[in-house]
């Protein structure tokens, strides 16, 4: 990415005077090197409108990066999938395991007293080892973990298709958390939050749902919406999901006309069908656009493996473990 892109984006944000969360991710944002990253970040320095978060595999975190994160109040997320045996897919350019380098990066964060969270991918090898996974993250020193069950999206073709094992995974993970709730688990947290909302709201109303556009900006300024995983995807009928370019127009102008974009319209249709058909809708709110498209080739589709693995079975597991009648 060139600084001209972030310069223009900053200009548009400041003109709009809106709070924006900038998430630096996709690929490895730190691979650009700190010097170039500072150039990209320069237009946002000190802005009251910007919250910065970065998702990284942490392998090149050093003292200079830590000082940069602290100085600019970056929230840091580390991609690590559990103990060493769970990280066989995380390798360096020469194919060597990245695990030890990830741990070194995490240690640097700790040395500088920088809080961090974790996003972990769970594959078939981890599904039966939830207890080991939870213990590892408790000891790692993170405050929050998001669990992504491996899914078929764009470049990744592997996926988990075993409802029973997935249900047991969430049951075991919930039990571990319940006995020792020292870190937050995103999926458990979201489900329990929904339970509480259902219990406490006198007038529970799922019509309050709003489409989360979640704009993603590519290296060249191209903008896609709904799911970051659509960035770089091929779909000629949808202009490869590109809805505009930061260099040519304000991202907020793109937002104003977003309901006219074909794939946003199709996704909205799918969400409405989810709402009409699915008991879990008020929890999941219609699923993820990227999963609908990459799994079924159709944004208007409803249930996906992502829905089952990361939404429905989570709810089912908690209901089972709390012995609901």
């Amino acid at each position, binding site marked *: 990415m060139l600084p001209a892109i972030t310069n223009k984006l900053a200009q548009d944000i400041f003109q709009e005077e809106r709070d924006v*969360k900038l*998430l630096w*991710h996709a690929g490895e944002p730190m691979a650009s090197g700190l010097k170039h990253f500072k150039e990209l970040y320069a237009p946002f320095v000190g802005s009251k409108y910007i*919250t910065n*978060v970065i*998702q990284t595999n942490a392998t090149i975190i050093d003292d200079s990066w830590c000082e940069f994160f602290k100085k600019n109040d970056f*929230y840091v*997320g580390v991609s690590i999938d559990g103990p060493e045996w769970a990280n066989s897919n995380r390798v360096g350019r020469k194919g060597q395991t990245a695990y030890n380098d990830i741990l070194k990066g995490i240690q640097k964060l700790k040395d500088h007293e920088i*809080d961090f*969270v974790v*996003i972990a991918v769970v594959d078939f090898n981890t599904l039966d080892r939830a207890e080991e996974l939870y213990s590892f993250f408790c000891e790692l020193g993170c*405050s*929050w973990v*998001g669990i*992504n069950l491996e899914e078929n999206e764009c470049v990744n073709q592997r996926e988990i298709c075993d409802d029973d094992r997935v249900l047991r995974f969430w049951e075991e993970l919930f039990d571990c958390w*319940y006995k020792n*709730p*020292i*870190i*937050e*688990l*995103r999926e*458990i*947290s*979201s489900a*329990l*939050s*929904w*339970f*509480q*909302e*259902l*219990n*406490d709201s006198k007038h*529970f109303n799922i019509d309050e749902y709003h489409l*989360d556009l*979640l704009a993603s900006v590519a290296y060249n300024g191209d903008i896609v919406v709904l799911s*970051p995983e659509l960035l770089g995807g091929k779909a000629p009928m949808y202009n490869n999901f590109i809805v505009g370019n930061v260099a040519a127009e304000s991202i907020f102008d793109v937002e104003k006309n977003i309901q006219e974009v074909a794939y946003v319209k199709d996704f909205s249709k799918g969400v409405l069908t989810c709402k009409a058909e699915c*008991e*879990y809708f*008020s929890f999941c*709110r219609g699923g*993820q656009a990227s999963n609908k498209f990459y799994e079924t080739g159709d944004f208007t589709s409803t249930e996906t493996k992502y829905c089952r693995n*990361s939404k429905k079975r989570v*709810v089912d597991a908690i*209901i089972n473990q*709390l*012995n*609901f*009648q």
Partner: protein
Amino acid sequence: MNNLEQKIRKNKPLFDQQFENKNKSSSVNLPTIKTGFSDGWDKGWGNYGKAMAIKK
């Protein structure tokens, strides 16, 4: 409300009891019991702002 939502509501006393007892028996505040749905990207940073807010 559909059947699933009714089932959860019907078990509210049990739900409250499970977490009330937990709070009494532990010095750790349960971090995840809070109102509001996830925000943002469910597979990425949804809820993260809330988590940080509670922690701080």
